[in-house]
């Protein structure tokens, strides 16, 4: 049964200002946001923060694309260009995509499993409020004499050890981001394992919850490894150790092994929650249960497992024994199997459904198509021999942007449109949402597809200037980039309109085909989600009839 609650909104001053229940809603702004322990408020903080970072990182991408618009250097010096590519990556990975997923986790996991709040609310506050300081510190390096970090987000020594005083700031910022992610993950795991409503067995949980549970374990396993790696860089730089210094008996390549032991699971940390969101959205708008729920769970778990044994496919050119290269090639190719299962299951969910194409569904379909393209180019990159051509070219740039932009970011957009009416109690503008989608979907292809050609034709990545033979496709790519960048302003417009201006109220159910516990709450939901655990029955859950 759904509770179709419709709210009037005469005195709405803020999206989450509702207080239908007798909760103690903090009154002052400081109490409300700085000291909040409420999962929804913290979720909102994470989401707003990540959107801000998305635009900061995005404007750096605009600088990059503007410089690459034509051959020759017109705008920035090569060193500043390197700072832009490095910071763009660090900010998008650690500041935009990861915190955005934590924001979704905060908002949705308690509501999806029938809990009142996150398990560790005070730690939740901490894990968010570390982030603004971490990124303030990271961004401040741009204003130092030595400039920002310019050795690439991978921070490979010895190059990264040539940086000046900014290096200590970068390392410390990475430490803080790591601590934030680990605290967030501990909270997610504790919430999911301990706070589920009675009857919400593990195999009844929505896929978004499942993917986040697995992601949280990945985070706890690999963020400390990254912290260890950058700490070793720090002591090599400032305290004379020789972990990665060949002169002192160390090995610079070892850093790459440690980094990618973190780095490859990190890729899945960014994409697994995307799988979860898309697995929520497609069934809703196809009005049909998710196809192969348990296969989806097992596929996610196998992808997570495999992510630990494929790291050296980022390093085929460093010179490894043949047997090592073969092992990493086979293991990497194997990832295609569970990933394929996921894509086939999404298509099967759509098959013979009764589909409508609201904005969340459009972004979800865009995700499936474009992520698949990124997955297929990933399969090509797995072939070690040919990777000796592809490696460190724009083909790789195209590949990971396909899985991260129309992959992870599209899934974030899809999720935002999907749950925005639930969060705010009002409908966003469907017309502008669709305009946002079509502009993004078309421009993202203009932006990234030609980069495949550039890479195949021989353009290395991370260069500020290029030979004239690469001019045409770089110009096309830049134009796509500018359109894509500008289109994202529409997204902000749609959100601001929805939160402050929209007159169309949302029902509790919001979407006709929506299933799951979050939809039996009012829109917006009460300050504490489920004070009394909900009753789980097969009609409310999207996967409850999966028991076989």
């Amino acid at each position, binding site marked *: 049964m759904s509770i179709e609650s419709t709210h009037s909104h005469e005195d709405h001053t803020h999206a989450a200002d509702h207080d239908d229940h007798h909760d103690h809603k903090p009154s002052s702004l400081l109490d409300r946001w700085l000291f909040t322990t409420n999962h929804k408020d913290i979720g909102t903080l994470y989401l707003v923060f990540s959107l801000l970072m998305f635009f900061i990182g995005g404007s750096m991408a605009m600088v990059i694309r503007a410089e690459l618009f034509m051959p020759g250097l017109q705008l920035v010096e090569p060193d500043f260009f390197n700072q832009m590519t490095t910071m763009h990556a660090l900010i998008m990975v650690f500041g935009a995509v990861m915190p955005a997923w934590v924001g979704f986790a905060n908002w949705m996991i308690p509501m999806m499993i029938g809990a009142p709040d996150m398990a560790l609310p005070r730690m939740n506050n901490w894990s968010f409020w570390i982030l603004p300081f971490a990124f303030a510190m990271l961004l401040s390096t741009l204003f130092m004499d030595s400039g920002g970090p310019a050795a690439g987000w991978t921070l490979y020594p010895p190059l990264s050890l040539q940086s000046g005083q900014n290096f200590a700031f970068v390392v410390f910022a990475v430490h803080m981001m790591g601590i934030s992610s680990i605290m967030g993950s501990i909270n997610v*795991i504790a919430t999911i394992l301990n706070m589920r409503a009675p009857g919400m067995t593990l195999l009844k949980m929505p896929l978004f919850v499942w993917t986040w549970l697995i992601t949280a374990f990945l985070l706890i396993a690999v963020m*400390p*490894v*990254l912290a260890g*790696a950058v700490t070793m860089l720090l002591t090599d730089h400032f305290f004379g150790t020789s972990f990665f210094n060949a002169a002192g*008996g160390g090995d610079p390549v*070892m850093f790459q092994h440690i980094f990618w032991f973190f780095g490859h699971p990190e890729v899945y940390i960014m994409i697994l929650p995307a799988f979860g969101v898309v697995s929520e959205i497609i069934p809703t708008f196809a009005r049909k249960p998710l196809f192969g729920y348990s296969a989806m769970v097992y596929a996610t778990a196998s992808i997570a497992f495999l992510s630990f044994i494929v790291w050296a496919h980022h390093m085929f050119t460093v010179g490894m024994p043949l047997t090592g290269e073969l092992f990493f090639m086979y293991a990497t190719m194997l990832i295609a199997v569970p990933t394929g299962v996921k894509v086939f299951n999404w298509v099967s969910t759509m098959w013979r459904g009764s589909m409508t194409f609201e904005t969340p569904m459009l972004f979800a379909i865009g995700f499936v198509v474009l992520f698949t393209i990124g997955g297929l180019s990933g399969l090509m990159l797995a072939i070690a021999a040919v990777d000796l051509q592809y490696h460190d070219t724009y083909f790789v740039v195209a590949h990971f942007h396909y899985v991260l932009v129309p992959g992870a970011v599209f899934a974030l957009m899809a999720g935002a449109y999907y749950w925005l009416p639930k969060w705010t109690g009002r409908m966003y503008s469907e017309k502008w949402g669709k305009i946002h989608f079509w502009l993004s979907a078309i421009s993202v292809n203009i932006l990234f597809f030609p980069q495949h050609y550039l890479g195949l034709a021989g353009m290395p990545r991370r260069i500020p200037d290029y030979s004239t033979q690469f001019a045409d496709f770089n110009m096309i790519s830049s134009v796509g980039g500018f359109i894509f960048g500008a289109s994202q302003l529409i997204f902000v417009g749609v959100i601001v309109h929805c939160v402050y201006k929209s007159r169309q109220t949302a029902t509790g159910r919001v979407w006709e085909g929506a299933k799951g516990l979050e939809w039996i709450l009012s829109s917006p939901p009460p300050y504490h989600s489920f004070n009394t655990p909900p009753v789980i029955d097969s009609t409310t859950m999207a996967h409850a009839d999966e028991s076989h």
Partner: protein
Amino acid sequence: MNEGQAKRDQSHGKLVTRLVLLAIGMFGFGFAMWPLYNVFCDLTGLGGRGVKVIENATVPEKSDRQVKIRFDATVNSGLPWIFQAKEKSMVVSLGEMSEALYLAMNPNDQAMAGQAIYNVTPPEASLYFVKTECFCFTEQVLQGNESREMPVYYFIQPDLPENIKEITLSYTFYRDENFDPLALTAGSASSSD
């Protein structure tokens, strides 16, 4: 209700402790990768440093198979020395004890210290490379205008895989930054007294 809350808090506590321990353990694992990596390199030849240095190694029986060995010498630009292999390459029989001679020269007026590191390519080959003596990984001091021959005694084990036709042994000399020539002269002066 309160009892349930207390129970829940308790199970949070246990779970959180475990997860924090896991995180700390993984932080340690990051550092443990340093020794682990070296062990792994010794086992697989990764990095081409799987060479064994065994004094008085028993030389196996000489085989008919021959293999070409190149000797490479590199000096890092931070160390103004001249460093060369006397023979650029050699054809040796597997299981045959051989000697390669490197020559280092310090053309400067003051004493300097360098330290050599080595690797072997293809990396797998390092597993079959046995040295009985090596000048690498130890500080080498050359007085001003001194030159010194640095020999390497080695043999290749006869079970070297068939597909390896050529092996390169490479040394790179780096400057020892901590070396203080004044301290050395003072030290040698006092010892000669």
